[in-house]
């Protein structure tokens, strides 16, 4: 673990990313304390520029506090990112594990299924799913999960495929361990690093995807999200640039942080690659 931290912290970007991410989480956790009340409350006159009337980041077209919206929205954005990633991981890891470990026709069937999902343009598919199930937080999470599992399945399959023939797995087989025990104690822990790295990136792209859906008006209307904020701010961008610029920056920073952390994780978990990345320096 100490080793992990040492390698992680050697990547300066990753540390910066982690700090940003922790700040975002802090804001999410303390949203109710910093901005008590509902982010939908009309607190002041519409289109107040940042800094005026106590609006740190300005107010929106109904006089709602953009800063409060960003703070409360961080919860939903992070939640959407996390939950849809967990769901996508659940689908992707189980299918990928099945395909990679069992091989043969199971592998073939699962991979055809995955290919099929990869052929449908994912954003278009997400729009379709959300529209069909009507935009609620549940359907948005579902749609994001459904379109983002194929890469997980592929990565996990590839890992399982190579780990399956590794000698320590064969050794476990020769010891008479059950298939489940082999998958859980021998293969999965060793396939974890790429999954961990991938999931940090998936959280990031889920946040982007959610915001894109909201931009097109396909977000949950009862929840304050960053995507909603930009979606409602983009049409007034020339009157109130702050309405789309700040939530856009929030997304940008969070996604950037997640990417940086992902790289740091990848460095820390794959020391071989890390050496390569950093060259000799």
């Amino acid at each position, binding site marked *: 673990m100490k080793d992990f931290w040492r390698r992680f912290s050697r990547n300066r970007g990753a540390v910066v990313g982690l700090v940003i991410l922790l700040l975002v989480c802090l804001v999410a956790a303390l949203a109710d304390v910093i901005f008590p009340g509902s982010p*939908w*409350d*009309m607190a002041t006159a*519409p*289109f107040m520029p940042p800094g005026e009337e106590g609006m740190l980041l300005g107010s929106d*077209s*109904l*006089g709602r506090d953009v800063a409060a919206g960003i703070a409360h929205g961080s919860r939903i954005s992070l939640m959407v990112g996390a939950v849809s990633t967990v769901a996508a991981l659940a689908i992707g890891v189980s299918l990928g594990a099945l395909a990679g470990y069992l091989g043969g026709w199971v592998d073939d069937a699962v991979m055809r299924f995955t290919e099929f999902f990869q052929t449908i343009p994912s954003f278009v598919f997400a729009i379709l799913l959300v*529209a069909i199930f*009507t*935009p*609620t937080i549940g359907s948005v999470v579902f749609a994001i999960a459904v379109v983002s599992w194929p890469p997980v399945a592929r990565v996990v399959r590839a890992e399982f495929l190579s780990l399956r023939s590794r000698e320590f797995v064969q050794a476990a087989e020769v010891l008479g361990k059950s298939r489940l025990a082999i998958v859980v104690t021998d293969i999965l822990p060793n396939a974890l690093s790429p999954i961990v790295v991938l999931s940090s990136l998936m959280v990031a792209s889920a946040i982007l995807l959610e915001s894109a859906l909201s931009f097109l*008006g*396909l*977000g*949950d*209307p*009862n929840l304050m999200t960053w995507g909603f904020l930009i979606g*409602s701010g*983009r*049409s*007034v*961008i*020339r*009157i109130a640039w702050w309405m789309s610029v700040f939530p856009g920056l929030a997304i940008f920073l969070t996604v950037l942080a997640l990417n940086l952390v992902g790289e740091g994780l990848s460095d820390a978990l794959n020391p071989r690659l890390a050496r390569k990345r950093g060259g000799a320096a």
Partner: protein
Amino acid sequence: MDVSRRGLMAAAGSAPVLMTVSEALAQGVTPRRGGTLQMMLTPEPPVLQIGVNQQGPTLAAAPKIFQGLITFSPTLEPQPQLAKSWTISPDGKEYIFKLEENVKWHDGRPFTADDAVFSITKFHVELSPRARAIFTLIETCEATDPHTLRIVLKQAFQPFLLMFDPTACAIVAKHLFDGQDYRTAPAVQQLIGTGPFKFTEWQRGNFIRMDRNENYWKPGQPYLDTIIYRIIPDSQSRRLALETGQVLLSQASDIEPFDIPQLRSRPNLTVDTKGWEYFSPLSWIELNHRVKPLDDARVRRAMSMAIDRNFIINRLWFGVGKPATGPVASTTRFYDANAKIAAFNVREANALLDAAGFPRKADGTRFSLKHIPLPYGEIWTRLSEYLRQAMRQIGITLELESTDAGSWARRVGNWEYETTINFVYQFGDPTLGVARTYVSSNIQRVTFTNTGGYSNPRVDALFEEARTTPAAADRARLFSDVQKILVDEVPQIWLTELSFPTIHDKKVHNVITTGLGPSKSFDDVFIAG
């Protein structure tokens, strides 16, 4: 884009002075001929054949190609169009229209009264629910000579003439439709009308182009060479197009309300909110009376009182439009200024709900309702978000459900909603555009009927009597009575009288001259200055 702007400037170059529309009209400035007028159309309509399609954009663009027998002034007085004159018998049953001679279809065939008969008795009756409801009153409709049309009604129907403007009953060519499936006939794509402009090109998703009809029946008109409707799905792009002069005119919901204050301050632009007198759209919270406790008039009244309509007008619509005072818009005939809904008063609204037996629970709420925002653009979502906060003040939780236009129409049509937003055209007369929402005989599983399910025999009777009464004064009295009952019962929670500003460059003249705003033929519109 620079090129197009230069082109327009060059065309307008010879006009020596800048002047406003009214000045131009007042001074009788000779209109200039020539130029291309670029406008916008939002959203892109599926087809431009009136009748086959009745959506707003079609009604805005198609009257350049198709014409009606008459049109209406801003005070809803009938004006001649294809009919140069008309007479109505004293009993209100017989209508005789004298039609313009020398009118030719765009394909060169002459226009006759037969075309009018076909359009009235067959085409629109088959296609348009609105026409169908009214034209069933016709006993005979015949061409007494090639340029005379005679219509006899089964019973007197005072608002009958309102059905003959181009948006309600565009006259189509009999020879192109008769004997075919009207919806799929080739003429639906190859539009042939009598109007000042001929349909020339439609690049879907991009633009619709119409060119001057050289054989137009009004001598010397139209003035414009070309009309182009650009399709621009993004509202900011539309505003930009208007500001940069790439388009010279915006209409209906092309421009978002929040952009209007800034456009007003532009010296080269005119913002005109007139021209919606015929349609007079009225918005309301549509309540489903089958859902408890929305069947309780006290609840409805309390909800109505919790809403600050001035806030909606000022903060959401940026001062465009005005608060609704009842079921009839102030621009519609027979509006009674004395029948007004209760004023904004949160304290009283709360008291009313307490008295009605809906006390606040421990968490401060009384009950919760589902609410579908109108899926026609952001402003409607903002409105619903405001309403949610307004209802919170009186302990009602509004839970928003997003839908797209498809689901919204189906759910409202099937009564599968609790509350939503709707806005409805009034077509100049309560019988045409108001009664349908409140009479129990029109409770149907289709949108724009009495989907809320409100039923009051007294209201039914008053509307029925007003429908068949020939004298305007009698009808006024009946409508006043019905308005008094309705503002008391609040079957729907009326919000605002909508108005959609027409914004155009000051060098475009004669834009709004009728009660139908930009849905006119544009044969007198010109660019100068």
